[in-house]
């Protein structure tokens, strides 16, 4: 199987990028190819990057609390770019009571702050080989 390609994106205005960059590094160490968008990306720009880079996974990092509206808009933008078959995962400051709602929007997994990197790597590898 070809190398897994991942886009890590910071949607919205949240400037907390420590976690996003840590996850980038962990995925790279696990042998994946990672593209990081940098801060303040619009949902449309994220979907375009996902299409252009032909990624298998899109990971959103959100710590401002705006995860539900942002995930919804990214999902719509991915659909508009016809790349909504990618795995969509969300990480950051995501309270447990919102996980269900995110999954209902089409998010494949939620990795709240403190999640072990190995769990993220494991999830992606498992879904890719399924």
């Amino acid at each position: 199987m070809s190398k897994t390609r991942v886009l890590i994106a910071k949607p919205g205005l949240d400037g907390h990028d420590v976690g996003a960059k840590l996850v980038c590094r962990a995925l790279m160490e696990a042998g994946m190819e990672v593209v990081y968008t940098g801060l303040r990306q619009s949902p449309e720009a994220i979907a375009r990057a996902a299409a252009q880079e032909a990624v298998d996974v899109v990971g959103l990092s959100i710590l401002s609390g705006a995860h539900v509206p942002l995930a919804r808009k990214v999902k719509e933008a991915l659909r508009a770019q016809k790349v909504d078959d990618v795995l969509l995962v969300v990480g950051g400051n995501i309270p447990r009571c919102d996980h269900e709602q995110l999954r209902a929007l089409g998010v494949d997994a939620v990795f709240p702050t403190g999640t072990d990197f190995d769990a993220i790597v494991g999830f992606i590898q498992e879904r890719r080989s399924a």
Partner: protein
Amino acid sequence: MSAQGKDVRPVVWESGLEIKPVYTTADVARTGGLDGVGEPGEFPFTRGIHPLMYRRQPWTMRQYSGFGTATETRERFEFLIARGQTGLNVAFDLPTQCGLDSDDPMAEGEIGRVGMAVDTLADMEEAFEGIDLDAISVSMTINGAAVPIMAMYFAMADKRGYSLERLRGTAQNDILKEFIGRGTWIFPVEHSMRLVGDTIEFCAKHAPRYSPVSVCGYHIRESGATPAQEMAYGLAIAQAYFDHVLSRGLDVDAFAGGLSFNFDIHGNLWEQVAKFRAGRRLWAKIVKERYGAKNPRSMQLRMIAGGGGGGLTIEQPENNIARGAYYALASALSGTQTMALCCYDEAYTIPSEHAAELALRTMQILMLEIGACDTVDPLAGSWFVESTTNEMEAKILAILGEVEASGGIVRAVAEGRVQAAVNRQAYEHERRVARGEIPKVGVNVLRDEGAEEHPVELHPYREDKARAQIERLGKVRRERDDRQVRALLERVRHAAGAGENVMPPVIDAVRAYASVGEVCGALKDVFGSYHEPIRF
């Protein structure tokens, strides 16, 4: 020397200092002696910047607060003041911090979420209505959009009859650290530096009691720096502002006393104490020897210290109350001027009233019940504390030397090198926590496996308040003199392009109710926007 044997586990602080089980007078001599300790209130201020410190005046308590609209924020301010808080620290929402109006498409879902929404002077007026600006000092956590927000604060104060000449307060306005951590930059690095310079120059000339910049090691530490790096990068950034302002021909004593600092407290208690005592001493020497300052006030490292968000955990959130108390103690033992504590629920949400009150009470109990204010720098003269203060000073100085040798902090930030170094370290730290080498109670030791849902009350996002804010902005736009606003924004563009100080025209523009987004838009027309270097 049996205690130094192989049977004790090694202790190494995050900053790299190896800690002995026992310290003696020989360690003090080995590390540089006691010559640099001095007296409180005297150069080099190791023991504190005032002769009597908390015996004369305890620290100011200044909790970071603000959410929703200006009205909701004022209610929280009043709640805290009524419970004995002695300073305010305003949190702005992300659109405001990024220089966008509430009706900008990028603002959707973020209006009033992590702080108060401010679009125009009308919001600033509403936020402080009825609050006596002489009786309580106001600090504003604003960086990228500091120019219009400071201008609004000055315009608001002036309209209410406070003279700029006497107005006290602080703006965070430390843009260099925003490129390293926190991320509310707007303009490219060199233009951002120039705007900070404009605010410092403006305050030196017109608002001498206002602190235009609070240099933040805090967020660099939160991004993964060690305590020694936090202090070193902070001091390097402060020097970059000094160099910039001096190049405009200002005298160092005309502005140096206006700069203050903001540092983080979490992790090892003694390491924090050494960091602050060493940092104060080093800064005094730098300002005196390198910049030739004559006024002792210019040499004083004044600070807010507290936090420490990075130490709090989502797991077992009530443990954060205990952590906060220890951080407050570390802060007092370090001789801070102002203290703020993260609330126990802050790892999840905007603090509830209850959590905010608990944090305030934590500081008050420390101040009133347990003798933290009894005497100045109570740890002075401890062989351990003086030795580690000496060693920490050498450590910080070495990092400062590395920064300088590699072309200075501004270049290192513009090229993304500091960011990459800090990020690598954050990764190593996370890995060590995951392996259990760095214990975190409730996270990698003493976990509560059965716990399902955390008992924290979540701050709701109010869609209706966000819509009301957009309507309010529309109303201001309809009622103001649009032609005048356009002309004043043109003057802002002109000043920006001509290298004139932008503060006077921006104050005029916001007085006529130009918005944060319009002022930042005018500046972007001239300066362009920052593009982040992606570097790992």
